[in-house]
Every structure is written in structure tokens, then in C-alpha cells.
């Protein structure tokens, strides 16, 4: 944990879907290099919180500052900020009409004006990193779920982001594929990437997380380092949750 | 000078499309002859009858050479050349019909091409049900097929073309050639105030008449 300004500063945000209060006055600071794991029961607002960070959801109250830029400021160039934030979805969301390689090169070429050759070289390097370079000319539909998710991580990395957001990256995978994706994520963490991960994989939280955040009903109920968190949970709701899933 | 004439080429023998897909017929030859005399080149474009007057006002073409009878109504919205052909309305019925006059057809359907002088003649007789067709041929076919009792159309079309066709020769006949109070003539229609074109056409028509070329055309297309 660096002793500087947080790279993500979330202050008192609230979010409504109609009557439903999906986020209820949430504040959270994330520092550069930190790995924050968000857990909580279904519907507790984990995804919504993650998605407000790159403004896939706008907030109704409060402020979010990412890398010094206030997202709730109307003049903020959200597309620029999003380039700093890699996002990995539960359902992979690879571009179906592009090969693996072109999934990785599309954004760098179009958005950063990187020459095709350089973009492809970089893409292949990333694909090697996630262990899937030999599939570069396949289309997403030809890959297994685990392979698709690894490509999705590589695609996010291709934009060279400062922060990576993961929304249940392994929930849509068959059990035998979960490991290969988690491995990639563990390696990424070791390299020092700032990561915010929504997951139900408690093993991963314990091994990688610097801090675990427990949400329920749109609120952050408890926060702490994983050891403390799993061994002596304070809040009864957290205890109940841990009982259920462990 | 090129003058563009609109024509509804479904009115044989006055104007129609021949086997070479050329627009041809009595009025076509007439205008070609007039052009030669007066020094203009006629160009013919095919236009559907029920919109033919609409295009004249916008200037899609300069004139209409399509067996347009000169009527007072039409004179209000367009100018006409000198008459170039005299017509009467013919009443066509089936061979076995005893009808001799339109008046006998009260309550019956009588066909004509939409908004021709034939239509006006039908509508002039109270009680006769007017049925209008896009083309006179469709009306004659419907008469032949028994859907209507009679067709009213210009006599050259009736006498000299439709009834010459072997199909209709056996089944149809002309019951009457109607003499209206006013004599009916074909004229070339031009947009109002388009005097240059009108003069040129008139000059041609006069020359054709003077040389007697119209008699030749009569013999060629209509007979007698």
C-alpha cells in the first residue's frame, strides 16, 4: 500500500435502479498496486460498484476520482479514463466477429494510433503471457470458456491500463477451467498491477488480496486484510455469508 | 430543335409500341412528318395516361401527342394545337347484343379508358355505371370476357384496330358511332404560355395538311 493519494477515490456514492438502492452511500479508497477483492451475496451491489468505476453505470450521488480525474465532472473525457481501466466481464464479451489477435489489436490501433505491426507484436506477447498464442487466428466461438476469458484479460491488458477491474471472471466457467484463469490473474497480481476483483473464489482472495471488502444490500459492511477477514469476521452478516460459501 | 412528346402508347393504331419496341402509330408518324416540315425533331416518351397531364405542367416533356381530344375543360389548364384528327366516340358491344345506344345501358357497366372523352360520354348518360380502365385494351378485354356490357372509345381505335383483331372480330361489334353535338378533334397539348413550341407544331400540322400527307397516313394506319 503506497503512502500517497489513492488511485481510485470513491466518496459517498449512491445508485438507484428505479426504487431499488443498488449502492447506498459507499466510500472506498484504492491505492496504486493494491489488490482489492469485493465479496458479498448476490444482488448486494458488487457489480454495480465495480461498474461505476469505469462509468458503465453513472452514479446518482457522490464522487469518484480515478487517477486524479473526477468522473462525475461533466467535462471529464470518460473515454480517455476508460483506457486506463481494463475490465474483464463474467461473460468474456470477446468481439465475435474478430479473431483473437484482432480482438487485442482493435482498440490500440484505433484509439492509440499504434501501427498495426507494433500492435500485433504486443498482442502476441500478451497472448503468450496468458498462454494462448497458438490460438491467435481463431475466432472466439472456437475457444473454450477458459481460453476466451484469458483472451479477454489479454485484450484489456493490450491497452496498457493502470488498473484492472474483474467482475466474477470465473463464474461462467466450468470447474476445470477456473484454475487456468486464476493463474493468469495471480501472475498479473505478482507483476504489481492494481486490481479490483469481484469474485466468489475465496482461495484467490486469501492468496492475492491485500484487502477484502464485504458488501451487503448496497453497503460496504466490513473491510480488512484477508487473514483477519476470514479468521475473525466481526459482522454477523459476514459470518453468515462465510458460513454459507465456505 | 427537339420537342419531347409524351404519349400513352396503348392506343393502337394512333400510338402504340410495335414489335421492335418502338413507339409508333398514326399520331407518331404525323408528328414526325410535321417535324420534317416545320424543322423540329420529335422525341417520344411513354407515359401512363392518368398522369400524363401532370407531367406537362412540371415540364417533364414539352407536349402531349396521345390522341388528346380538345375539350373546354382541358383548355383551361393547357393549350392545344390546331386539330389534327377528327374523332367520334364508338360504342362497342358484344356480337349478340341488341343494344343500339348508350341510353339503353342504364344500370349496366360501361367501360372506357380513365378520363378520356369516352368516359365523359358515358358519364353524360345518367344511370349508366362508368367503369374506368388504365388502358382501353383492358376495357375491351373485359367486354370480351363478359364483365361489362359495352365500351366507349375513339372510333379509329375501335373500328380500325380492336375489331380488326381476329380475337375480337368474332365476338364484338360497333353498335353505334356517336355524333356529339360538338365535333371532337385530337390536338397536341402544350403547357400554357409555351407559345414557341405551339407555333412550331402548328406550322408543321398546317404543312402536313397542305401537302395532303395526312391522307397518306390515314390510308397507312386506319384504312379507307
Amino acid at each position, binding site marked *: 500500500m503506497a503512502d500517497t493519494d489513492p488511485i481510485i477515490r470513491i466518496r459517498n456514492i449512491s445508485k438507484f435502479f428505479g426504487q431499488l438502492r443498488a449502492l447506498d452511500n459507499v466510500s472506498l479508497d484504492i491505492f496504486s498496486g493494491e489488490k482489492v477483492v469485493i465479496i458479498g451475496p448476490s444482488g448486494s451491489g458488487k457489480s454495480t460498484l465495480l461498474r461505476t468505476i469505469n462509468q458503465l453505470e453513472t452514479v446518482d450521488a457522490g464522487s469518484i476520482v480515478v487517477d486524479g480525474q473526477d468522473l462525475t465532472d461533466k467535462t471529464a473525457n470518460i473515454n480517455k479514463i476508460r483506457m486506463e481501466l481494463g475490465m474483464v466481464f463474467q461473460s468474456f*464479451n470477446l468481439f465475435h466477429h474478430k479473431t483473437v489477435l484482432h480482438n487485442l489489436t482493435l482498440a490500440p490501433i484505433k484509439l492509440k494510433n499504434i501501427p498495426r505491426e507494433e500492435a500485433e507484436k504486443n498482442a502476441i506477447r500478451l497472448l503468450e503471457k496468458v498462454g494462448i498464442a497458438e490460438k491467435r487466428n481463431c*475466432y472466439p*466461438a472456437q475457444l473454450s470458456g477458459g481460453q476466451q476469458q484469458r483472451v479477454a484479460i489479454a485484450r*484489456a491488458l493490450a491497452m496498457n491500463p493502470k488498473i484492472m477491474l474483474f467482475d466474477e471472471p470465473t463464474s461462467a466457467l466450468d470447474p476445470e477451467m477456473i484454475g487456468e484463469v486464476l493463474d493468469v490473474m495471480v501472475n498479473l497480481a505478482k507483476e504489481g498491477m492494481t486490481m479490483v476483483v469481484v469474485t466468489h473464489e475465496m482461495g484467490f482472495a486469501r492468496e492475492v488480496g491485500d484487502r477484502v471488502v464485504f458488501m451487503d444490500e448496497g453497503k460496504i459492511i466490513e473491510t480488512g486484510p484477508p487473514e483477519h477477514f476470514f479468521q475473525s469476521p466481526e459482522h454477523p452478516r459476514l459470518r453468515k455469508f462465510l458460513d454459507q460459501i465456505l | 430543335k427537339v420537342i419531347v412528346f409524351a404519349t400513352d402508347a*396503348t392506343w393502337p393504331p394512333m400510338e402504340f409500341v410495335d414489335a421492335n419496341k418502338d413507339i409508333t402509330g398514326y399520331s407518331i408518324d404525323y408528328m414526325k412528318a410535321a417535324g420534317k416540315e416545320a424543322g423540329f425533331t420529335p422525341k417520344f416518351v411513354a407515359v401512363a395516361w392518368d398522369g400524363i397531364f401532370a407531367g406537362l405542367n412540371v415540364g*417533364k416533356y414539352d407536349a402531349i401527342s396521345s390522341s388528346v381530344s380538345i375539350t373546354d375543360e382541358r383548355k383551361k389548364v393547357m393549350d392545344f394545337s390546331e386539330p389534327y384528327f377528327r374523332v367520334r366516340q364508338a360504342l362497342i358491344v358484344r356480337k349478340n347484343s341488341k343494344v343500339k345506344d348508350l341510353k339503353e345501358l342504364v344500370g349496366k357497366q360501361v367501360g372506357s379508358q380513365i378520363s378520356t372523352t369516352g368516359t365523359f360520354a358515358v358519364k353524360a348518360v345518367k344511370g349508366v355505371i362508368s367503369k374506368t380502365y388504365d388502358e382501353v385494351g383492358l376495357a375491351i378485354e373485359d367486354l370480351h370476357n363478359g364483365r361489362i356490357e359495352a365500351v366507349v372509345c375513339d372510333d379509329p381505335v375501335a373500328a380500325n384496330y380492336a375489331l380488326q383483331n381476329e380475337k375480337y372480330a368474332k365476338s364484338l361489334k360497333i353498335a353505334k358511332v356517336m355524333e356529339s353535338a360538338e365535333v371532337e378533334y385530337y390536338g397536341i397539348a402544350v403547357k400554357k404560355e409555351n407559345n414557341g413550341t405551339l407555333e412550331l407544331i402548328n406550322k408543321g400540322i398546317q404543312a402536313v395538311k397542305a401537302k395532303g400527307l395526312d391522307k397518306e397516313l390515314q390510308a397507312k394506319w386506319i384504312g379507307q
Partner: protein
Amino acid sequence: MPEKKVTIDIGDGAAIPTKKDRGLLSAWRLAFFGAVGALLYLILFHPDPYLRLLKFLPDGILITFQVTFSSIALALVVGLITGLGRISRNATINLIASTYVEVVRGIPLLVQLFYIYYALGQFVRVPDMLAAILAMSFCYGAYMGEVFRAGIESIDRGQREASFSLGFNRTQTMFYVILPQALRTILPPVGNEFIALLKDTSLVSILAVSDLLRRGREFASESFLYFETYTMVAIIYLIITLILSKIVGIMEERMGGHGRH
């Protein structure tokens, strides 16, 4: 056990034979070879008037194709714009596009043709063919708009979100991510509209555009051979649309999924 909601939509284009529908597949064969056989029989054994007719009609077929292709090209452009308008978040644009669709689909094509050709013809001067093409495209643009809209809406929301999260803006997302995928989905219905449009070009014959049907009417009005002429015209249209529907059918079958070679 809740019931699923079933919606049925029968396109106007043509009956598209696919492998799934064996009945239609053999019907296609019967119809196609029947039509070709009838054509040959008539030409060989009754050359008068059928061979004469066959010689009279070809430039009409050409015009029919010209009108069809030009109209579909224009309609695609109009349709894309309309489709984007229909899903626009800008209320005004949305309303304009929706109203265009609603009005065009509420008025018979023939009335629209008359309107654009004669009524508006009083104010602007356009050549016949162009007027016909404009009218057809104007009308089919509305249908195409709905095809584009449905195609775009069929693309998973995740695709947009993934694109946004990489830093693409709305327009880039539409053109780099959504439309390329939507195009594959809409290819079959566009093929369908194409056939429907080809058939509907027969209406321009009313405007004295010398398409296939007009040529037939001209032939008939001079020869009075209505039965023979319309038999021939119908057979020719049938052969053309059957070939096209076969092509669309093959296309549909190839559209198994994205990115499979």
C-alpha cells in the same frame, strides 16, 4: 410449467426453402423446374406468340433489375440511418425516425408511388426512372430501418460494454463492434426484402417505367393476347424469384454462427 411466448412473422419476400423445410425444398424444385419446363415448352412448341414475347421482354427485365438494385442500395443507406435513428437516445431523432417508419408502413406502396411520382412531380422535376427508384427506396428504407434496428438490438449488450470499457465512444462502438456483427444477422432478412422489392418493382409499371410488367402490358395492348402475355410474365418473375430465394436460402444456412470458417 410456464408457456413460452411464440411470435410468428412471415416475411413478405418469398418462401425461402431451407434444409429444415423438406416440403418447401421439393416444392422449390417442382416450381422451378416446372417453370423452366413450361417456358421451354411454350417457346419450342408455340413460338408464336411466345418466342415473339420472349424477344420483346428482355429490356424490361433489365429495367426491373436496374430499379431493384438501385432501390435496394439506396434503401440500405436510408435503412441504416433510420435504424440508427430508431435506437437513438435523442428523443427528437428517435421520433422522426419512428414516425417515418410508421407513416411509410401505413400507406400502400402504390399510393406512395403515385404520390411521389405525380403529386410531388408537380413541384420537382425528376426523370421517371429516378422518381420510381426514389419512391421505392423511400418506402423500403422504412422496412430496412426495422431490419437494421432489430439486427443492432440482437447484439448482446456485453459487446457494447466491452467496447466502452476499452475506451471506444458510442460511434466507434457502433461502427467497429456492433454493425459488423449486426450485418451478419441481417443478411438473410435483407435478402428477403430484396426479393420482396424485386416483386414490388412491378408496381412501377403503372408509372410507365418500362419494366418487365410494363413491357408485357405494352405487348398485350397491341396484340390483345392477355392470357399468353401474363403467363409469360408470371413465369419469368417466378423463375427470377425462385433463383433469388434459393440463394437467400443457401445464405441462411451458411449463417450458422459468427466466425466459423
